[in-house]
């Protein structure tokens, strides 16, 4: 046999050469070439991610405005001597949950006082001497405040549940996409009869993108869900505190 030269050869298959640019420029082509199922999975994850981030942004804006307005409302409430003064600023601070509680309590108070203002109801208590207004039912006022805080709590928690859903569902959706992708890959292996890494590798990598996308959607959702529910809890205790304060003032002045 004739002597061969002094060379060393590195052979490279085309498929392996294509994958060494990572998740770089060819990621678009890669996704475009993937199966409809994995495209669908990625699309669903994309929608979930967009929706959850939109809710996060919306809630953060809402809460920031809410905190600002609540602090100025409390400032006004504690400095003023009359409920009617406070009522007049309610319109401009309507994003604070305390405003809703206050308005409900004030309306209930007004209704009761107006009724008590007239002739003595049969069976009711006569108006107190000296023209001093009295509350007919203290419990009714309490219930009105309770209803108002229920409404405000609903408003605070509105749409936060989407974050919890995203956090718990998207990893599973991604995992589903991955498992189906791996199933397809193994079918491909069976079809070609080749266990070459250059045949198997891209398929599995493509399948794993779905799990990565699911995690990328879920992780911020978990974080912001905890952040927002914690804030909601704080606001709820603030509402509770405010309604007790309101009851105290009403009891002091109208009994």
């Amino acid at each position, binding site marked *: *046999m*004739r*002597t*061969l*030269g*002094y*060379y*060393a*050869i*590195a*052979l*490279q*298959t*085309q*498929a*392996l050469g294509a*994958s*060494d*640019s*990572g*998740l*770089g*420029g060819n*990621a*678009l082509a890669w996704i475009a070439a993937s199966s409809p199922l994995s495209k669908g999975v990625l699309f669903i994850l*994309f929608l979930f*991610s*967009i*929706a959850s*981030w*939109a*809710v*996060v*942004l*919306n809630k953060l*804006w*809402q809460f920031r405005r809410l905190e600002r307005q609540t602090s100025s409302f409390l400032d006004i409430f504690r400095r003023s001597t009359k409920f009617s003064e406070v009522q007049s600023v309610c319109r401009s601070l*309507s994003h604070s949950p305390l405003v*809703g509680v206050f*308005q*409900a309590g004030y*309306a*209930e108070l*007004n*209704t009761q006082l*107006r009724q008590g203002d007239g002739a003595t109801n049969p069976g009711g208590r006569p108006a107190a001497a000296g023209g001093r207004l009295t509350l007919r039912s203290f419990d009714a006022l309490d219930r*009105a405040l309770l*209803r*108002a805080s229920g*409404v*405000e709590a*609903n*408003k605070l928690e*509105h749409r936060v549940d989407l974050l919890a859903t995203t956090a718990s569902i998207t990893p599973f959706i991604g995992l589903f996409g991955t498992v189906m992708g791996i199933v397809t890959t193994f079918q491909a292996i069976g079809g*070609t009869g*080749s266990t*070459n*890494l*250059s*045949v198997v590798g891209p398929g599995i990598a493509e399948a794993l993108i779905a799990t990565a996308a699911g995690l990328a959607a879920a992780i911020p959702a978990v974080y912001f869900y905890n952040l927002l529910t914690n804030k909601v809890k704080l606001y709820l205790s603030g509402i509770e505190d405010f309604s007790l304060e309101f009851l105290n003032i009403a009891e002091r002045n109208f009994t």
Partner: protein
Amino acid sequence: MESTTDILRERARDQDSLGQSHALWLAYALSLVSHAVLIAVIIFWPAGFLSSPETEMPTVVMNISLGGPVGPSQGGLTALAARPVQEALPLEEADEAQWEQPPAPAPPEMTIPTPDARRRPEADVAVESAPDESRGRTPTRGPTLRREGNALAETGSEGDGAGLSAGGLGSGVQLDVADFCCPEYLSLMVDLIDRRWNRRQRVSAEVKMKFTIQRDGRLTDIELETPSGYFALDTSAERALRLASLTPLPSRFASDDLTVHLTFRYFAEERP
């Protein structure tokens, strides 16, 4: 004056009012835009977003190193699994081994048997064959048999692979397909290229070329990967590739083409 219920209803409706949902739509738009930006960054990041530019992707390189020092011209296909097999050499004519003889028993001196000496008692069992320990290897003396050839040299490489040995003037083949089917094709390819290549230059240098073998045997995408620094050597290597006419890829090979990195090594030496 509104009743409490009216106020509560008003407050509950507030969250779906236009102002509120306007903010929500704004949030959706912002979220969509930031997602689009993020995805665009990932896709159009210059050198791959996830792989750091310094580290190369680990390739499944199987080193079947066949390049060897200059030696006698002998060659042939090596076995699989990267074990170059030496050419079997004719056995040396060994000197005849001499059996080591136990020393001859000394002749007994003449003695008068003692009258009261008795015979040792006979064994109960008649011995039919020697016990195991007493059999076995016969100790030998003399020259050891030296055996050459047919030795397997462990190259330390792992995995399967195929290679060809060109004997002393070996060519190195590096495969990074774990199961490239056809070692004989490589041998043929190297041989065909070598016929067009003028190896005998006055300097030692290395030129690394890259090319792609199409299914029908055409060579395309011939590029100079690592220049030697000498224009003549680069040109000579490229010329060898352009002139070589290869046979079509073996039908058992699955891909449509095969990209090869080939190093041409020039040695400044006089060889016939």
